[in-house]
């Protein structure tokens, strides 16, 4: 798990706003290992979206090296970059960005349209991915007939279509209510654990970020702070001291901190007669 899927060295991005130069990214270094689940946090204007665009080959960095699977995308022309986007990157957007006139399966098939896969292979893969995100039986539904949480699941399935090296999720929970938010975070966490998908998540939401394994704080175009998240415990590593955990441990044997929370007891159900009955 030590192989680097993303390596950024001295990456800077300068925008020209009128006569002023804005350093959206300033000499940024970042490495993401294969199978990592990272969150990028930071205030507005800190360069989060620029960073994501640069990683996703949507923007080109002004300076620096940008290695995705050992290919320096900073040097590639647009005629090559779209292939990187198609094959190496999976995008998940805040607004889902599903095509409204295509049903769930067709939306998932879309990134595979331009690959060598046959139509039946594509359909089979799309159905499999929709099952992975828990949408079996909803393949024929169009986006407007899906809830927002479900739409985001379709978008995640679409991002996984070409088995990308990295999933880039830009505020994936930004438009969702608390329940959907938890579902999506859990889905991403499970994808990371079960399929080893590398995920980079940009969020404002500390709670969401806490569920990843590595939280990066971005400020003025630089990574200023880094912290471990609770997700590490799911990989049986103590988020605080990196000691190896046993699957059943609630507290770290090494540092004594609580790493897993016991499930809360179910709240008593109030019956129609007003009497409390045990669940």
């Amino acid at each position, binding site marked *: 798990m030590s192989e680097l899927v993303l390596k950024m060295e001295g990456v800077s991005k300068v925008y020209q706003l009128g006569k002023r130069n804005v350093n959206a990214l300033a000499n940024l270094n970042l490495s993401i290992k294969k199978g990592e689940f990272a969150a990028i946090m930071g205030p507005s204007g800190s360069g989060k979206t620029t960073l994501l*665009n640069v990683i*996703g080959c*949507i923007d080109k960095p002004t300076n620096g090296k940008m290695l995705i699977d050992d290919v320096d995308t900073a040097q590639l022309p647009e005629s090559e970059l779209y292939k990187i*986007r198609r094959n190496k990157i999976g995008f998940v957007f805040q607004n889902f960005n599903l095509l409204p006139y295509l049903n769930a399966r067709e939306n998932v098939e879309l*990134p595979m349209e*331009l690959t060598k896969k046959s139509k039946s292979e594509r359909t089979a893969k799309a159905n499999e991915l929709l099952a992975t995100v828990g949408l079996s039986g909803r393949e024929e539904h169009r986006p407007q007939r899906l809830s927002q949480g479900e739409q985001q699941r379709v978008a995640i399935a*679409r991002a996984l279509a070409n088995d990308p090296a990295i999933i880039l999720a830009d505020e994936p929970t930004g438009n969702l209510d608390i329940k959907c938010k938890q579902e999506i975070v859990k889905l991403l966490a499970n994808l990371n654990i079960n399929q080893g998908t590398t995920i980079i998540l940009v969020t404002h939401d500390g709670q969401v970020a806490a569920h990843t394994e590595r939280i990066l704080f971005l400020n003025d175009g630089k990574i200023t702070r880094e912290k471990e998240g609770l997700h590490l415990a799911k990989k049986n590593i103590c988020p605080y001291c990196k000691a190896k955990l046993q699957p059943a441990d609630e507290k770290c044997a090494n540092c004594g901190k609580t790493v897993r929370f016991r499930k809360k007891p179910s709240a008593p159900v109030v019956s129609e007669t007003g009497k409390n009955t045990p669940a």
Partner: protein
Amino acid sequence: MAIMIAVPAGIAANQSATQNLTGNLSNTLTLTEATINQTLTQIDCSLTPSAPSGFGFSGNFTPGQFNGGGRPDFNFTPGQFGGGSGIPGEFGGGALGGGGSNPMNESLYADINSSIPGVAAVAPILTVSEGHNVTVTFGDRSFTRMVADYIIEGVPLNSSIIDKYPILPTNITSGRNLLAGDSGVVVLSENNSAYFGVGLGDSVTILGQAFEVVGIHGTAGASDRTTLYMSLSDAQTLTGNTGEVTTIEVFADNSEDVTAVSSAISTMHAELDVITAQERLSQLQQQQTNYDTQLANAQATLNQTQSQAFEEIIVAVVATSLIVLFVMLYTVRERTKEIGTLKAIGFSNRTVMSQFMLEGILLSLMAGVVGVVIGSVAAPFLSSVLLPTVGNSFGSSFRFVGGPASTTAVTVNPELMLIGFGVSVVLGALGSLYPAWRASKTRPAEAMRYE
């Protein structure tokens, strides 16, 4: 789009009508002139008919058909020049107003041969048309006229005449021509043969009397397509015109004598309508000049219509391309986020561009289909409103087909439909070129924008 289809349809119809007319006129004139030149020594004498004389065109005109005749009792098949009691192989007398349908006693005019110097021969001829009445409607008027099923022409089978002068059919396709002294036999035209359903050697019953078909003649002149030939006496007996003829053909010794002979005949028999072949020729030439003028007028009108329609087409084409351009630009702008998404998930510039081009082309092809359907339904109505009526430019004596009726001939044919589809594909491609290029240049980051 409908108007775009309708306008060229109208032009095409008017154009083809005029071209047909032009072709027919020049064919007919050439043919007739050639025939006249062969028989310059000939003088036709007949009673002045009661019908108005003068060359007139009347009746319904369909492309390819030239309908005419001074009297309303002759039928003309396409490409045929009007004819009446004329001699086979010649222009018809009726066409020049000579008229010959009034029978006269042949013995009254025996003095033409005996007392006028310079007369080489006299051939009395009886021409009788047999036919049925039909009612022809064009515009808001209708006419009843007789359509000749066949024309009986009785010629004197006298070797001194038929051996020297062209009064018998000249183009025998099978069998033989009439011979001096023949009786009870006929030479049919090919049309007659089909009409009666008989062939060479068969017996044919004409007006209740049986004749033997000894020959079939092909069409030499324009007037003899329905004319059958028999001896004068047979014809007189058959049609109840004993001793009567409709035309006396006088042949002068040579062409220099023609004028003197014809004036002598006129002096002797003032009641006769005397016309020489030479006069006919000059009359025809006069007619030809008139036609030329009229055709030039028609051509001018057509050219005007065409240039007008061309302007309309240019305007329509430009407007259509602009509409496609703006619609596609709007579409691209409205779908910026979608395009950004497509590019973010790995669509290349080329794919995006071709998708939008295809969309524009499909859109305008669909519009083309709708336009052709509407156009084919609406073209006749639209063209009667939009196109000038060619007929109005002609004098009342010359009814050019097509006048008000020409617009009903407008149809949208398959070629026009194909042109319509082709034009819509080209315009769709043209109009969506820039919007598609704009779409392909959309930055994928647009998909990231929050709304």
